[in-house]
């Protein structure tokens, strides 16, 4: 059973608007693959192209090396879990799960066997005769998974299926989805705007922005080695400082950050930097730590504007004294314990970082991501097409 999916130079246009720029991508059989991006980035469009609800304007989709051009939705070896689940409200749990088998002419006894087996897989034994309207949110979620698995798809497509659940349940379902994926060995293609979900469950993640795939990598690489400024600011939290390259030698880069003085960082992997080039230095909040005002290495002096104590860690919202830019600093319990009562609003502190942790990427004018909402706040292309999913 080959559940590999290949996109070959796929382009999707709606009238004048290009929802998907030319995209080629190979997803391995049995892989848990996520598309991560803000709303309007084209990830749902891509999912609809794989499922067959949309026909690409250009290019081809292959599933298990079979071309999917001209194969209608109901004949593709895929199954979709919809954002609102789309369970059939007038049917029982059994009938929902068995619908796909009924369509395929499987006899009643065999159907019931399959649905019982799947109900056991999603831990819903005994719920078969219930109406779906009687179930809780999490149970509905499980029925939707069972219904999709019943048709033995080679590829399972999941369109933000956890977004309707509350936080606790969402985290629990992550673990469960991952376990189901491992047990069944089916290729999962998962769409989400929640980076936590993507990083947590996926073997590989494609970060998308404005109809373009920015980077495809495993979650750890994505976090540590962002390939573009968009990925750096969308995946995890990042402080972004504008600077100009003064000296780059191999990985190590020296930068002139204007009012902030001289800073140092590490060039992003596969990034070519030339002297004098405009660049962005990305500093994760957890890589900053308080240092003495005259300590060696790069230093940033900032004034504390707000303190969020979260127990295991603490987040400081600060403003750089020299440039007025915002800087978020996350301090682990170990660090904050040593400075009990020291973090007062208005206080000035000096923060240092290891240049090896600070990734330098060319300033590509990539869209910025709003820290609070995770929405793209800049980048005119995205804005223009932002409403088009």
């Amino acid at each position, binding site marked *: 059973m080959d559940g590999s999916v290949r996109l070959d130079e796929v382009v999707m246009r709606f009238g004048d608007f290009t929802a998907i720029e030319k995209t080629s991508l190979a997803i391995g059989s049995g892989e848990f693959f996520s598309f991560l991006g803000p709303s309007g980035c084209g990830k749902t469009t891509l999912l609809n192209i794989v499922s067959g609800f949309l026909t690409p304007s250009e290019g081809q989709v292959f599933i298990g090396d079979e071309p999917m051009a001209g194969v209608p*939705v109901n004949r593709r070896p895929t199954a979709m879990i919809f954002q609102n689940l789309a369970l059939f409200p007038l049917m029982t749990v059994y009938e929902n799960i068995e619908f796909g088998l009924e*369509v395929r002419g499987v006899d009643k006894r065999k159907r019931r066997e399959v649905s019982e087996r799947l109900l056991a897989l999603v831990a819903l034994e005994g719920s078969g005769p219930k109406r779906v309207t009687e179930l809780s949110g999490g149970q509905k979620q499980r029925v939707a998974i069972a*219904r999709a698995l019943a048709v033995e798809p080679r590829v399972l497509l999941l369109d933000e299926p956890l977004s309707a659940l509350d936080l606790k349940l969402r985290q629990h379902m992550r673990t469960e989805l991952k376990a189901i994926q491992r047990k069944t060995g089916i290729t999962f293609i998962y769409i989400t705007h929640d980076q936590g979900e993507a990083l947590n469950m996926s073997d590989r993640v494609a970060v998308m922005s404005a109809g373009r795939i920015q980077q495809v990598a495993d979650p750890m690489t994505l976090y540590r080695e962002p390939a573009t400024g968009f990925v750096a600011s969308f995946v995890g939290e990042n402080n972004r400082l504008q600077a100009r390259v003064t000296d780059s030698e191999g990985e190590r880069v020296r930068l002139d950050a204007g009012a902030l003085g001289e800073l140092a960082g590490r060039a992003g992997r596969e990034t070519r930097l030339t002297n004098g080039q405009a660049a962005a230095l990305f500093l994760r909040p957890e890589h900053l730590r308080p240092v003495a005002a005259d300590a060696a290495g790069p230093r940033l002096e900032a004034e504390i504007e707000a303190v969020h104590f979260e127990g295991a860690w603490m987040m400081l919202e600060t403003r750089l004294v020299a440039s007025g830019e915002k800087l978020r600093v996350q301090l682990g319990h170990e660090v904050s314990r040593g400075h009990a009562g020291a973090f007062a609003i208005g206080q000035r502190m000096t923060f240092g970082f290891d240049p090896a942790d600070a990734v330098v990427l060319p300033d590509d004018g990539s869209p910025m991501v709003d820290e609070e909402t995770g929405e793209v706040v800049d980048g005119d292309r995205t804005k223009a097409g932002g409403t088009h999913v």
Partner: protein
Amino acid sequence: MFRQLQARFGGPLAMAIVTLLGIWLIVMVTLPQLQMIEYSLKPNLLPAQIGGPDDRFTLANYATLFDNDIHRTIFFKTIWSSVLVTLLTLAVSYPLAWYLAKVATPRQAALCILLLIVPFWINEILRTYSWFIILAFRGPLNEVLMMLGLIERPIRFLSGNGGVMVGMVYAYILFMVFPVYNAIESLDDNQVRAARDLGAGTVRTHRRIVIPHAKPGIATGCIMTFMLAAGSYAVPALLGSPGSRWFTQIIYNWFFEGGNWNQGAAYAFLLLVLCIGFMSLVMKVFKVGLGDIGR
């Protein structure tokens, strides 16, 4: 209910509304019906005999229908034809309602609805006459069909039931399209997409997903169409041939040509009972309640 009205409109206005509603229901609906029932249970007498020894309750007027072969045949034929009209109207309206609710763009839907409604700005008699012209032996439909070479000689559409069927389906299509449209419109598109995704073809998607969801709307449309068809007078009178007489025409004849109101009232009452029976049957079969129809 009075409390709600009172809270909304205040005491005097609420009282006025309830009084008017009461007058309307009692004076204009209930009393005339009761009088019809009374008429139907009494023999047709000369004015001089009223109050005399012959003026007593009898079921003779009802028995007439069962004794008269022709009337009985027409009675059942009317029911059967009304069922046919209902099914035909549903068959025409369902695809249209589906198109309006799920396929058409808002502009197309608006245009389509406008085109459906515009003819209904014209009086029903005139609309029916226009079908009389279209379907006439030397009318435009026959001309077009002959020009296209589809038929060799004109067809007599207006003899037999054909004309009446066409006229009625056309006359009642709105009463079917709108309830069905409303019902289909409320269906989540993802339901249809999910069914497709799980492998269902068009027919199965409609049979298992769309139609069950639209059932209350379909039942409402069927009941309204059936009632209107069974009680229709203008269409069979204008488009019908002598062979396709409608039961309403017989009732009309008793009242206005036979001058026998008592007999006419009995016939009318039987038709009413039958319609109510049919309505309850449809509601039972489709498992819908009166509340669903009100929506």
